[in-house]
């Protein structure tokens, strides 16, 4: 099936043709949001609540000589001042990261990045807490920082992580994938080899709501309730139990409405732990909410990969092999939230959408005096970097071969009959049919016409570029045997309960940050059980009221929890069928399901609705032998494989030859995320990701000076696209269902963030072709584009 929902200029037929579960349904969560009745972390007010503020390091690398808190403690509104030394006495000064490293909760020995947590104050109000921070006197012995990852392993580089026993350098980890020798053999024999250095700069998800927590520790029963901005409430609860030694059943983590996440709200931050300690120390509920600078300088960043891409091909343009060498900057602590066996996330899919003979990647990760993190900003566990690498290097090959970049891609696509396709780096792509998706994007864009326009404009000295990318993503982590986070298997639970009157509640282990779970999951269940979505309440984000699961990131909600929701509904339906057989006095085999009711085969008049069955299940009447009362079920879904959504993107840019300002004139995105549940929500996810792509390609970068000062610590310096920098998106879709997902769905939340940066950069580089440019590094600000137009390569940082 190939249809589009391109708008508004072109409207194709078959718009939203038979998506699953009520299709383009308006969102159930919106009525509260438009009334200002969302309930975010900072909206929580508890009686007697105190406020916490964190003192952060002003420097990137220094030994702490002394901390004097006397004046702060004397402040009339201050209730507690806590330093790393005090936490160390309780064994709480360090905590494990999600990558088996450790991270300081509060610095004890050294500070290792600007913005690192040094002490916290608890006071009666948020202003007083901030005032008291000013009264803490810290003496630092400044050390040389390591800012440039390329110098981190130099023998003269200062050792950042001297807290780790025997550590004598800044090496974090090495990782490789693919067959080095086989790849070398292909490269040695190839007609054409193209090599390109490229930098994916450090960027930040910067959700509009910063991170925060409200901790409420009840001394009498020892119960901790923690409201926190987390995309993974269950994983957090278990880790708090392990770190703090609190019994897990006495911890309740509630993730309220989240004002965006994008991976920024996956890690456990020192602030959350401090808020818990603050509540335990004071015996009162304690609120902590970051300011914007704290969010930008200290929380989970993204990317920061320095990559060399190499591609080998025949002179006719058959791609044979891809090889890459990556230097990964992980900051001061390895705070990456990735499955344990995948320290580079899913970067192994850098082979892209192409049928190769060989592939090899080698990565060295280093510590630097920068904030920890690494996997965030809708990156699908580093697939953003992988797709950028392959889609840039393929364009470099097209440049050298003087081939059209679309023709080169189509020539090398994995063919539909090759699926499931095992890549040379060990990934099994579940399904794909790439060429129709590429051709649809060309049709919507009017690709040939655009090329003609470009040729004419070049004649007139105008600077216009057309960029293409084709991506394949791998989303929906586990299965649990392959993927875990600190030993917690990546699977997700789901519980469905049908009330006596036929209304339902479905409880999820994942947590929305704006993706519309309350709507989408009601639609999935509605499709399977035949109850209207309006009659299905979705409960999530509360560990006391939902089954265990690993949470929402890496586009895993629909592939994992969406499957769980469909299967739990089928389990309930199986029980309903047995009850129906009793009600209709026929055997189970004689019943037929038609969305919402069972009827006797051959006699549709003899039927019972799911609502009738629900009442019967809870009623006083007899139930079939061996059947318990009630109509509910719970499952834990362990995915068989990842799902592999894909898409074709085409970007058109105009560059002002006088100012080098880039305008994204058009952007066409054709996505294939398998079975579509709510096309409106999918389109929204794609739009958001495309905007991220414009941000990363043109303006976003977390930059540092040579002393390790973060130069992008506010939204004045860290630029995010506004409505004036983005075009009206043109979207389309194809549908290639996942063969192993119960309803054929794949994830889509990050597709556009993954796929759009190379399309935009490819468009800009294409525009600059007359200037002899084959590559330019992001962010392509006017000054960088100007430099490129003058023949000056862009600086790597």
């Amino acid at each position: 099936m190939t249809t589009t929902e391109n708008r508004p200029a072109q409207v194709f037929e078959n718009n939203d043709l038979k998506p699953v579960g009520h299709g383009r349904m308006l969102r159930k969560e919106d009525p509260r949001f438009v009334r200002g009745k969302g309930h975010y972390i900072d909206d929580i007010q508890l009686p007697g609540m105190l406020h916490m503020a964190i003192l952060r390091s002003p420097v990137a690398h220094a030994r702490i000589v002394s901390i004097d808190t006397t004046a702060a403690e004397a402040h009339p509104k201050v209730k507690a001042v806590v330093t790393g030394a005090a936490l160390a006495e309780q064994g709480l000064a360090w905590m494990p990261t999600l990558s088996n490293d450790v991270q300081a909760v509060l610095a004890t020995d050294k500070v290792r990045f600007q913005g690192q947590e040094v002490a916290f104050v608890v006071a009666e109000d948020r202003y007083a807490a901030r005032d008291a921070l000013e009264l803490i006197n810290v003496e630092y012995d400044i050390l040389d920082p390591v800012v440039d990852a390329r110098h981190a392993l130099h023998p003269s580089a200062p050792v950042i992580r001297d807290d780790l026993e025997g550590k004598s350098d800044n090496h974090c980890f090495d990782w490789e994938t693919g067959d080095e020798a086989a790849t070398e053999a292909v490269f040695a024999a190839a007609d054409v080899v193209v090599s390109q250095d490229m930098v994916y700069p450090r960027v930040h998800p910067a959700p509009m709501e910063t991170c925060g927590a409200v901790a409420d520790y009840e001394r009498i029963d020892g119960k901790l309730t923690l409201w926190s901005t987390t995309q993974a409430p269950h994983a957090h609860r278990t880790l708090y139990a392990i770190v703090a030694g609190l019994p897990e059943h006495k911890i309740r983590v509630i993730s309220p409405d989240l004002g965006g996440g994008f991976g920024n709200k996956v890690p456990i931050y020192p602030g959350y732990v401090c808020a818990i300690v603050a509540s335990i120390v004071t015996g009162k509920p304690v609120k902590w909410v970051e300011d914007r600078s704290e969010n930008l300088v200290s929380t989970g960043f993204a990317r920061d990969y320095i990559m060399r891409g190499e591609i080998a091909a025949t002179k006719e343009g058959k791609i044979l092999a891809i090889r890459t060498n990556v230097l990964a900057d992980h900051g001061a602590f390895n705070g990456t939230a990735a499955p344990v066996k995948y320290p580079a996330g899913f970067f192994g899919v850098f082979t892209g959408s192409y049928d190769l003979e060989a592939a090899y990647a080698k990565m060295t990760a280093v510590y630097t005096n920068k904030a920890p993190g690494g996997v965030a900003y809708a990156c699908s566990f580093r697939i953003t970097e992988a797709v950028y690498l392959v889609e840039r290097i393929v364009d470099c090959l097209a440049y050298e071969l003087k081939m059209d970049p679309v023709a080169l891609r189509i020539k090398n696509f994995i063919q539909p009959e090759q699926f499931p396709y095992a890549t040379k780096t060990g990934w099994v792509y579940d399904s794909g049919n790439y060429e129709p998706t590429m051709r649809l994007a060309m049709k919507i864009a009017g690709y040939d016409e655009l090329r003609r326009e470009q040729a004419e404009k070049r004649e007139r000295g105008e600077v216009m570029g057309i960029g293409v990318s084709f991506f394949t993503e791998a989303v929906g982590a586990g299965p649990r045997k392959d993927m875990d986070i600190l030993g917690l298997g990546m699977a997700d639970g789901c519980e469905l309960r049908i009330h006596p009157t036929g209304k339902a509640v479905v409880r999820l282990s994942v947590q929305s940050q704006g993706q519309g779970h309350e709507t989408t999951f009601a639609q999935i269940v509605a499709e399977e059980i035949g109850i209207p979505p309006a009659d299905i309440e979705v409960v999530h984000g509360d560990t006391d009221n939902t089954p265990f699961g690993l949470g929402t990131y890496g586009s895993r909600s629909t592939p994992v929890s969406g499957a769980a929701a469909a299967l739990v509904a089928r389990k309930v339906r199986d029980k309903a069928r047995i009850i129906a057989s009793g009600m209709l006095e026929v055997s189970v085999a004689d019943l037929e399901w038609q969305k919402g009711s069972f009827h006797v085969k051959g006699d549709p008049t003899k039927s019972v609705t799911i609502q009738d069955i629900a009442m019967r299940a809870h009623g006083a009447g007899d139930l079939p032998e061996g059947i318990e009362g009630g109509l509910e079920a719970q499952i834990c879904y362990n995915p068989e494989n990842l799902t592999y959504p894909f898409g074709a993107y085409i970007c058109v840019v105009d560059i002002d030859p006088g100012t080098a300002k880039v305008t994204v004139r058009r952007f066409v995105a054709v996505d294939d995320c398998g079975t579509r549940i709510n096309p409106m929500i999918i389109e929204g996810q794609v739009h958001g990701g495309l905007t991220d792509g414009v941000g990363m390609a043109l303006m976003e970068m977390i930059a540092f000076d040579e002393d390790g000062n973060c130069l992008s610590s506010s939204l004045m310096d860290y630029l995010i696209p506004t409505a004036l920098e983005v075009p009206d998106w043109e979207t389309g879709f194809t549908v290639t269902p996942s063969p192993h997902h119960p309803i054929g769905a794949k994830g889509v939340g990050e597709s556009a963030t993954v796929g759009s940066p190379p399309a935009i950069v490819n468009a800009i580089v294409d525009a600059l072709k007359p200037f002899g440019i084959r590559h330019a590094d992001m962010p392509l600000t006017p000054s960088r584009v100007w430099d490129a137009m003058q023949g000056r390569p862009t600086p790597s940082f």
Partner: protein
Amino acid sequence: MQVSMTVNGDEVTREIEGRLLLVHFLRDHLGLTGTHWGCDTSNCRTCVVWMDGEPVKSCTVLAAMAGGHEIRTVEDLEQDSVLDPVQQGFIQCHGLQCGFCTPGMMMTARALLDRSPDPSEHEIREAISGQICRCTGYATIVRSIQWAAAHEAAAGAEAEVPDAVVTAGSAS
């Protein structure tokens, strides 16, 4: 110090610190948490409210400066249980995802439509260009405001949008 102002039509008087920001006054002192805070530097406009009919960034106004003035927040957009067309438009056209920037966006949109009932797409983009949304990519926000403009032009405010409307193929 004591400050008095009109908030959503109600006279309020509170004892405050002189340095208290209007956004914190509204949120922490009056419990009007629909107005959000998103940055320290007056760049994101998540906190937009109206002062005497004009959109202002409530993170950049001291509560004391609002004394004697009329403040209007997102909580006042719905009148007599009928949503403002702007609110309806945001629901109809998927103008929000996480909902965090939404109150500020809607207050700006309402002000735009009050002075320019039939804005062009560029006018709309310009009007919201000081406001950051990380989720939507803005196109659906533009459509939401266009929806509101069209429906106001057609018939004034329509009936309240039910809490969960099921539509089929309503590509706006």
